[in-house]
Structures are given as structure tokens and as C-alpha cells.
């Protein structure tokens, strides 16, 4: 019942946004921005610049394609799908080129981020580096399922819908993924 209400309110918001109501558009973006950025960060190998780019692209696509959004799936599902595509593209995109630019022209200390304390930052980065290494041992599907189900905490049904696979397939990717991660990160996660 509650879910139905939420969906209806969102459908109303989408209709308003489609008619060009800027407040409704902002409200839609506000509602999902943090969630999508968080998922982007996890999907893009904990690289915040890449995650930021992917998030921006996702919301640009939302704004440019809003008129053709028919509501066949929830907006959240649609955004996750677009985001996954963006993240896979960003990963594929000239990583070397980015590195080259960073090396030669510096990081430009991105204005979008305020740096947390260095010690805290270092410890966090080290952990994320280990997780990234372990995640790279998984297949692409396992990685996606683990990110969406374990890290993002979506339901099996939502994950299946986003990835366009059966719930059985989600489970099997999940079990294998968790098993591998347990082998790789077991000792760390017990700390």
C-alpha cells in the first residue's frame, strides 16, 4: 500500500516534469542524486571523478529522455540501468588517456570535492583498493550483482529487473561472487 502511494506520487512528479515543471525536475534529481552517485562510486572502481562523470551523464540522459519515459519500469530501475551503461563505458574509456592527463596536467584538485583529512582518506583508500582487487576477480555479472544486491541493498527482484535476468540467475551470480570475495577478503572483514 505504502509502495503504491510512493509510486503514484512519483508518477505525478514525472508527469509534471514532462510538462516542463522545473521544480518537479529538480525534485526528481534531488530524490535520486545521492543514491545514484553512491552506486556510481561503487560501480566505477571507487574513482570519484569517474563516478561523478557517470552520475552527471545519467541525469543528463534523464532530462533529455524524460519525455519518452513511459513508466514501464520504476524511475529508479531506469536510472540504475542508464548508470550501469555509463559506468561500463567510463571503465572502457581511455583509462590511459585519463592517467596521462592527470600525470601531465595534474589533478586540478577538483572543485566538486572537499578533501577529508589525509589519514582518514589514506586508510579508506587502502581498503577500497583491496576490495577493488577482489572485485576484479569476479565476472562482470557477478560484480554487478554483488554491487547492487550486497552493497546497494536492493532486492533480488529489483536486481533481476535492472539487469534483465531471472532471479535464479541473480542468486547464482551472487553465491559465486560472495564465495570468491570471502576467500579474498575474509581475513580483512573479520577485523
Amino acid at each position, binding site marked *: 500500500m505504502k509502495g503504491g502511494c510512493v509510486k503514484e506520487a512519483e508518477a505525478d512528479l514525472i508527469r509534471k516534469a514532462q510538462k516542463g515543471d522545473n521544480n518537479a*525536475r*529538480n525534485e526528481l*534529481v*534531488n530524490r535520486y*542524486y*545521492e543514491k545514484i*552517485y*553512491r552506486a556510481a*562510486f*561503487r560501480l566505477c572502481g*571507487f574513482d*570519484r571523478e569517474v*563516478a*561523478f562523470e557517470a*552520475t*552527471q551523464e545519467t*541525469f*543528463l540522459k534523464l*532530462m*533529455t529522455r524524460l519525455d519518452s519515459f513511459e513508466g514501464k519500469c520504476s524511475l529508479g530501475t531506469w536510472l540504475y540501468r542508464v548508470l550501469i551503461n555509463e559506468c561500463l563505458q567510463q571503465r572502457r574509456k581511455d583509462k590511459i588517456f585519463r592517467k596521462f*592527463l592527470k600525470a*601531465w*596536467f595534474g589533478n586540478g584538485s577538483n*572543485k*566538486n*570535492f*572537499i578533501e*577529508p583529512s589525509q589519514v*582518514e*582518506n589514506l586508510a*579508506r583508500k587502502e*581498503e*577500497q583498493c583491496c*576490495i577493488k582487487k577482489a572485485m576484479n576477480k569476479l565476472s562482470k555479472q557477478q560484480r554487478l550483482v*554483488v554491487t547492487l*544486491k*550486497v*552493497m546497494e*541493498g536492493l*532486492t*533480488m527482484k529489483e536486481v533481476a529487473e535492472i539487469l534483465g535476468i531471472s532471479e535464479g540467475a541473480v*542468486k547464482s551470480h*551472487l*553465491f559465486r561472487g*560472495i564465495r570468491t*570475495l*570471502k576467500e579474498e*577478503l*575474509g581475513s*580483512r*572483514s*573479520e577485523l
Partner: protein
Amino acid sequence: MRCPRCKDIYLSVLDELDAGAEEELKTHLESCDECKKEYSEVQGLVNYLRVKTLPDIIPAHGPQKAIKRDGGFFVRFFGVLKPAVAMIILVLLFAVGLQLFHQPSLSPEEKEVVENMEFLKDLDVLEKLVQIVDGTPGEHSSICRKHFRMAWGDEIYSEFLS
């Protein structure tokens, strides 16, 4: 682990086990140390993955900017490239500048040769003039005027000759 319950353990930790199976698993965990250990390990792993993978900061860039910042492909591409493009342009300008200002220093002999070359260009014109002056000026007067002007760029002389 030897006990075949691990899938139920995964599902339970991830809140995906239905009530009946959950109850059954709980009863089993009370009597099986191996599964108990596995359960706590999986739970530890899931918590670890959830917490440690959170972004330290959400970009200060508001969502409004996400909408407005629609520069299209080129703006975004060249936005990234700005420093690189600036470098390339600088290098090109430098190369062009070098070419323009690079004057080969000539020895006095070489300079003389260059001056003579300039003179040789006009030699053909002078030859014609000599013909005109020596021969019949009538039919050549127009050519004469033209060539004179070309040779010295001075109208008075050409008018005088015609």
C-alpha cells in the same frame, strides 16, 4: 564448509530468505557450530562491503548543475582537453615564429649574389628596351611604356620614351 546450508545463510544475511526457511535455519544454527561461524563470517563480509565502499563525500556539485551542465559532447571533450589544446597551440605558434624570424645570416659574397639575382629578373625587360631604343620605337611604344614601368616603376621615364 561441509554443511549444505551456505546458500540459506547467504540469503538470510541478505534478507531474502522466506519466513519458514529462516525459522528452520535459526534452529539449525543453534546446533551447528560450523554454520554459526559461517553465518557470522558472511555477515561480517557483507557489513564490511557495505561500509567500506561508501564514498567519503558526495560531490558538492548540486543536482541543478547536473541539469545545467549540458555542454554536449564537444564542450565536454574539449573541456577535458583544454590544457592539452593550449599546449599544442603554443608549440605550433613557437614553430611558426621560429620559421618567420629565422633570417639566415649571409656573408657579403652571398648578399651580392642575391642582389644580382634581383637584377637578372629585370634583364629580359632591359633587353627589350635596348631593342626598342635601337630599332623602331613606333610599334613597340606600348610595350616600352609597360616594361619601363615594370622595370623602374617610374611613369615619367616611360612617358618620355613614348
